[in-house]
């Protein structure tokens, strides 16, 4: 799909549809802008509709500084990604599906950041997980795309379950599910016995979503998605959801030693590991993915801090990262689209061919490296100040930040210099600039990095400060300036840039070292994931082979054994509580029926032919039905009798089609261990059920329900037959469910009976 120069300015017809669809993000962005001035003044907009009040699940939304910042980033990136994708995906047969997924994903993400109810947030959270599965696996013809999509789904989906568990634990500990109410009971939560459990659950949820060590491996693999998706997932959304959750929970759970140490250590490890790995690969997209890991690690590290300074650092870096990462991903996508390769070894000298893209990449990478005058520089200064202000391990935090930033500088240099500088390889001679739709996004966001860098005061006042105030109680104002004077952060900044340059010079050697390191690690988490998954599948296969071996006898034994084990283990300790087994009393006719049923049961057990056994079973059923009749339950008796009759007919129909009957009881000479096992199993099942029934019978019956139905069935439901009134009126929803089950069972049965297509008669 290479575009030759005359076409570059023209937008193909097929991508106009995509252009229309960017009305959605731009409209949402405009709406947020309307609320912006109010939020800067400290207003908080909330709306709430009841949804499932009994579960404490309400459609509660809240717009404050933090959600506004996230909302603006999401909609702005969404807007540029949509414009970009309208050309990038042009001609793709599943163009429409792409935009539906993309925008559904954007809306789910907005749901996360605007939800004020934790359950609602969880629902949106899982929606992003599922949609990201669809997006990562968008090219589902490729097996690695499917594999990676499944990996992302498994890791983040499992984390989502932890999140749900945390929410439920919080609720069961007696706290609300509304975020704004939770922050008021922060002390109660932090001193609660369940706090560590709740904290771990929320942490696992946030860490899996945001790719923290040791759950980081899915994130670089998510690169199988089309590039606009990667830009959206990595810059603005999905992976930032975990960061957002940590920010939201900060006033609720933050500040404890557990919180601070976990976040600083996990974030630090992620930042360093991501930054080191970013030097390794030659694939531009993969490099960017690892730098995302680094950014997420750094953000987590700063959220472990408790001062306004470190939280401001986190919020500032969040913006810095969103801007440069989206621009870089889109630019890399352009390179890939135009040249057909993302491999650093095959690229070079593109500056003459794609000047505007080169300019955008320059803006983004310089911001990423933290050059003065760029927004990244401001971010880095405040990061050093914030790291030194951490409560726990400030020197560790500063050291990690310094080394991660130095590595980032080197990576930024690689991204900027290798593809664009140098000699143009022969196979790129026909490469030209992309259409404007693919240039506008990177260019604008690259430019924004410079604009924000020049006017940091405006940014801090209108974006960062309101966001930080939304999740930190102290209203300590931090002003961002381009030049803070000669202080420690500036010194560290200079060290970063120089050591970044040194690392860049040594990149070949370092790359070799990193590959050696990764190859020789004793065990890595991706391997653990893989072996865990394989082992899980083989275990499942083994269990299935044992339990579902196709033998009806095995199924029955398993069911009966489970019944005996579970019911017996719960019930048998209470057997002693039964006062006495009640004497069997009743009219003589019932006694006669009792003997009849016993005789029929004996026929079933000793029958030598199937038909006789089935006849015996029918006798048992009929006898029991008559016993019901004698004891005054004509409804049940009628139903039972009819069911027995029908069962008999059905079983006979089946029998007619089975192979000729053989004696089912073998001669006594071949007594088998199986017979003994079955005998023990059936006798113990019989004993358990017998003691259970006698236990039930010996406890006095609560007749209040009967009395209720006796008084109300005629008055409220105009029926004198209580059983029928219960079925069709008082509990008709249950009946509705039951007939659904009957129909489903019949449907399944029909398909089991019928022969495969082609062999069966037309209905």
């Amino acid at each position: 799909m290479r575009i030759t120069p005359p076409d570059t300015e023209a937008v193909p017809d097929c991508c106009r549809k995509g252009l229309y669809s960017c009305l959605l993000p731009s409209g949402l962005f405009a709406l947020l802008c309307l609320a912006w001035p109010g939020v800067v003044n400290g207003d908080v907009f909330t709306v709430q509709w009841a949804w499932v009040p009994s579960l404490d699940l309400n459609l509660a939304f809240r717009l404050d500084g933090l959600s506004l910042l996230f909302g603006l980033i999401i909609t702005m990136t969404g807007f540029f990604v949509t414009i970009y994708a309208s050309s990038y995906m042009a001609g793709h047969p599943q163009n429409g599906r792409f935009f539906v997924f993309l925008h559904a994903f954007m809306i789910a993400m907005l749901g996360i950041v605007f939800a004020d109810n934790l359950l609602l947030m969880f629902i949106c959270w899982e929606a992003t997980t599922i949609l990201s599965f669809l997006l990562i696996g968008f090219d589902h013809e490729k097996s690695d795309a499917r594999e990676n999509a499944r990996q992302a789904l498994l890791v983040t989906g499992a984390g989502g379950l932890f999140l749900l568990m945390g929410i439920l634990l919080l609720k069961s500990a007696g706290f609300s599910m509304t975020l704004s109410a939770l922050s008021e009971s922060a002390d109660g939560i932090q001193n609660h016995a369940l706090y560590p459990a709740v904290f771990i659950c929320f942490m696992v949820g946030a860490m899996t979503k945001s790719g923290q060590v040791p759950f980081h491996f899915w994130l670089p693999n998510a690169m199988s998605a089309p590039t606009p998706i990667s830009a959206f997932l990595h810059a603005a959304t999905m992976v930032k959801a975990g960061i957002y959750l940590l920010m939201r929970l900060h006033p609720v759970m933050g500040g404890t030693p557990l919180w601070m140490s976990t976040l600083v250590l996990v974030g630090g490890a992620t930042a360093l590991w991501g930054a080191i790995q970013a030097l390794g690969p030659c694939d531009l997209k993969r490099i960017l993915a690892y730098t995302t890991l680094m950014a997420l690690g750094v953000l987590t590290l700063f959220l472990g801090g408790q001062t306004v300074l470190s939280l401001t650092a986190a919020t500032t870096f969040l913006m810095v990262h969103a801007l440069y990462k989206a621009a870089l991903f889109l630019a890399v996508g352009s390179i890939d689209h135009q040249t057909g390769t993302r491999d650093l070894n095959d690229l070079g000298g593109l500056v003459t061919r794609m000047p505007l893209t080169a300019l955008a990449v320059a803006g983004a990478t310089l911001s990423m490296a933290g050059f003065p005058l760029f927004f990244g520089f401001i971010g880095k200064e405040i990061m050093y100040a914030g790291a030194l202000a951490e409560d726990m391990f400030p020197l560790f935090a500063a050291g990690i930040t310094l080394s991660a930033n130095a590595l980032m500088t080197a990576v930024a240099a690689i991204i900027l210099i290798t593809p664009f500088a140098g000699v143009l390889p022969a196979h790129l001679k026909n490469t030209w600039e992309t259409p404007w739709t693919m240039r506008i996004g990177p260019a604008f966001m690259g430019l924004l990095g410079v604009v924000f860098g020049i006017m940091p005061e405006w940014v801090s006042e209108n974006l960062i400060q309101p966001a930080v105030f939304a999740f930190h109680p102290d209203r300590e104002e931090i002003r961002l300036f381009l030049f803070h004077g000669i202080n420690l952060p500036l010194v560290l900044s200079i060290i970063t840039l120089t050591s970044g340059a040194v690392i860049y010079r040594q990149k070949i050697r370092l790359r070799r070292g990193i590959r050696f390191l990764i190859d020789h690690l004793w065990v890595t988490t991706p391997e653990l994931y893989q072996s865990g998954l394989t082992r899980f599948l083989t275990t499942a296969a083994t269990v299935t082979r044992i339990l579902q071996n196709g033998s009806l006898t095995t199924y029955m034994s398993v069911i009966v054994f489970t019944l005996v084990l579970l019911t017996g283990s719960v019930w048998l300790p209470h057997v002693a509580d039964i006062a006495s087994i009640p004497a069997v009393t009743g009219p003589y006719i019932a006694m006669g029926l009792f003997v009849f049923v016993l005789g029929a049961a004996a026929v079933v057990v000793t029958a030598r032919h199937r038909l006789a056994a089935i006849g015996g079973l029918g006798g048992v059923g009929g006898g029991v039905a008559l016993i019901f009749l004698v004891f005054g339950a004509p409804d049940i008796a009628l139903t039972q009798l009819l069911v027995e009759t029908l069962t008999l007919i059905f079983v006979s129909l089946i029998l007619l089609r089975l192979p000729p009957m053989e004696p089912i009881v073998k001669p006594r000479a071949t007594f088998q261990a199986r017979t003994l096992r079955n005998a023990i199993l059936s006798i113990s099942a019989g004993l358990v059920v017998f003691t259970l029934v006698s236990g039930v019978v010996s406890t006095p019956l609560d007749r209040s329900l009967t009395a209720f139905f006796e008084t109300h069935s005629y008055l409220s439901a105009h029926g004198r037959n209580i059983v029928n009134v219960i079925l069709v009126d008082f509990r008709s929803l249950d009946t509705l469910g039951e007939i659904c089950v009957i129909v489903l069972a019949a449907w399944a049965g029909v398909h089991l009976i019928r022969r495969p297509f082609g062999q069966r008669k037309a209905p």
Partner: protein
Amino acid sequence: MKSVILKTATRLMIGLMLVFAVYVFLRGHHEPGGGFSAALLAGTAFSLLAITNGADHVRKAIRIRPSVMALSGLALAAGAGLPALFFGKPFLTGIWWQTETFAAGTPLLFDSGVFLAVLGAILSILLALEEN
């Protein structure tokens, strides 16, 4: 099954059984009976017919496909819950029209739904067994 006696008896029996099924269905609200029992009875009647005269005969006799019957039963039962919504009551609440001697209401509709669903389920299994 080629038994003249059974065939002849079936011809007499089936009408009787179906009428009895209707009777059991209608008395259900006040006396033992109701949609479920009536469906079982009707199902028994049709299985008799299927055994003596074959599945095709039953298909012709009932005219609509068993699966359609079962699904329309479900729809009828669920639909019987809707009128309550118009009266501002929870789904499936019984709505009654009554005179001094007579009362009819949505539970009757609901019970017909149960009847159709269960009969449809029985017939679909029966016919599948018979035809296989």
